[in-house]
């Protein structure tokens, strides 16, 4: 998904894309890591984001409004390994699109294979690895989708601060997540030939396909954790389900961008999640970090369903592997 933003920078009046809802909720000891909206988190689970919707202004000149609606389906193959499919439908408002009157369609399909590498409940620590692929030519041509596939090996981590000393008990509900990926296009260059409709002259645009370092994460303060693991302050029930969160998602060009005026781009996303037993809802602002990342503050919202809780005996359990091991009494 990160590479789509890079493409928008390369091709000018195309679509600017932010990563949408590739997170997964996860329980690690006392800690519940919620699904995040923008920066992918380390969770591996059965779940469905239906939908993740965002509205923001692109970095194009002139800037245009872009509406993205994404669906993410994550299915565990084993307890530690999941496959994720995420189609995203985009609408560019005028003067966007190739003719300046807007454009709509699906973006290139994105898939992720994610494996939970390490999980430590005592220290609320989890590490996962994954391979994200954005598949060439699977989206609408009117959106100028990439004609090459991009593979992004990715490292994810999450750490809850529940093991802090008593003197800073108030900080124990804090948790951080991080994601680091290296986006590798399947082709090093893209060549596009266009003919002038009047003269018939053909011009050839031969541009490199840069490699990007994708990085980001979240800082979150869990009110459920505060109530059930640190200090029950007797707050209203609604408050006890909230997780204020700030996410960040950035892309830094690393190589193969000679001649292109590329900078680090991305967004900071402050917002809040409401977490229930079987679903969560979240809303965040989309704040571009510079002019190359967007021209005004946008918004992103998500409804996220926990399939492992909704359908624990059918689609909410891993395909392979025995039944969940019962907890042994002390």
């Amino acid at each position, binding site marked *: 998904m990160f590479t789509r933003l890079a493409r928008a920078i390369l091709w000018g009046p195309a679509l600017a894309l932010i990563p949408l809802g590739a997170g997964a909720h996860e*329980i690690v000891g006392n800690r519940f890591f919620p699904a995040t909206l923008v920066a992918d988190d380390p969770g591996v689970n059965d779940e469905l984001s239906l*939908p993740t919707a965002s509205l923001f202004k692109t970095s194009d000149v002139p800037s245009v409004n872009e509406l993205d609606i994404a669906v993410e389906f994550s299915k565990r193959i084993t307890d530690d390994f999941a496959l994720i499919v995420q189609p995203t439908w985009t609408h560019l408002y005028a003067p966007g699109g190739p003719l300046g009157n807007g454009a709509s369609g699906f973006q290139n399909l994105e898939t992720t294979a994610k494996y939970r590498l390490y999980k430590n409940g005592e220290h609320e620590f989890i590490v996962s690895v994954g391979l994200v692929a954005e598949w060439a030519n699977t989206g609408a041509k009117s959106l100028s989708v990439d004609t090459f596939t991009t593979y992004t090996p990715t490292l994810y981590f999450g750490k809850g601060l529940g093991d802090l000393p008593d003197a800073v008990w108030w900080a124990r509900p804090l948790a951080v997540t991080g994601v680091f990926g290296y986006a590798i296009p399947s082709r090093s260059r893209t060549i596009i030939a266009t003919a002038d409709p009047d003269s018939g002259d053909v011009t050839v645009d031969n541009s490199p396909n840069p490699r990007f370092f994708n990085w980001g994460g979240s800082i979150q303060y869990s009110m459920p954790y505060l109530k*059930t*693991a640190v200090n029950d302050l007797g707050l209203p029930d609604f408050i006890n389900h909230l997780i204020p969160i700030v996410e960040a998602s950035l892309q830094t060009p690393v190589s193969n961008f000679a001649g292109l005026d590329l900078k680090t781009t991305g967004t900071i996303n402050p917002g809040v999640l409401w977490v229930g*037993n079987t*679903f969560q809802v979240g809303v965040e602002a989309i704040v571009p970090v510079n002019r190359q990342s967007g021209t005004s503050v946008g918004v992103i919202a998500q*409804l996220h369903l926990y399939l492992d809780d909704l359908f624990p005996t059918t689609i909410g359990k891993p395909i392979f592997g025995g039944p969940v091991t*019962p*907890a042994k009494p002390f």
Partner: protein
Amino acid sequence: MSNKSIIAALFALPIVITQASAHATLDHSDPRVGNTVKSSPSAVTLWFTQKLEPAFSSAQVTNASGAVVSSGASVSGSVMRVGVRSLPPGTYRVHWKVLSVDTHTTEGSFSFRVGQ
């Protein structure tokens, strides 16, 4: 149906899915998490968000030195009760591990204080 209506309908889905089962997580306890009680309780009571499997759900209470100060736990529905000996003033930690009726295992811990 307009795009706005479709999006509104999708975000209304939680209304129809609130009756599903889920992980059993701690909802609240007595003594309350992180709070101080004046005198020793006779038991620690834990309320969970889902019904528990009694045979595979338990809890322990330990004192500041790690010694167990609780007796056995009993489960009724989504409530677990752990008997404790007369507790002198100090900080105590409750460790719980439960299996919900939909076979999800969860665990956690928290502290409370007596007479401080």
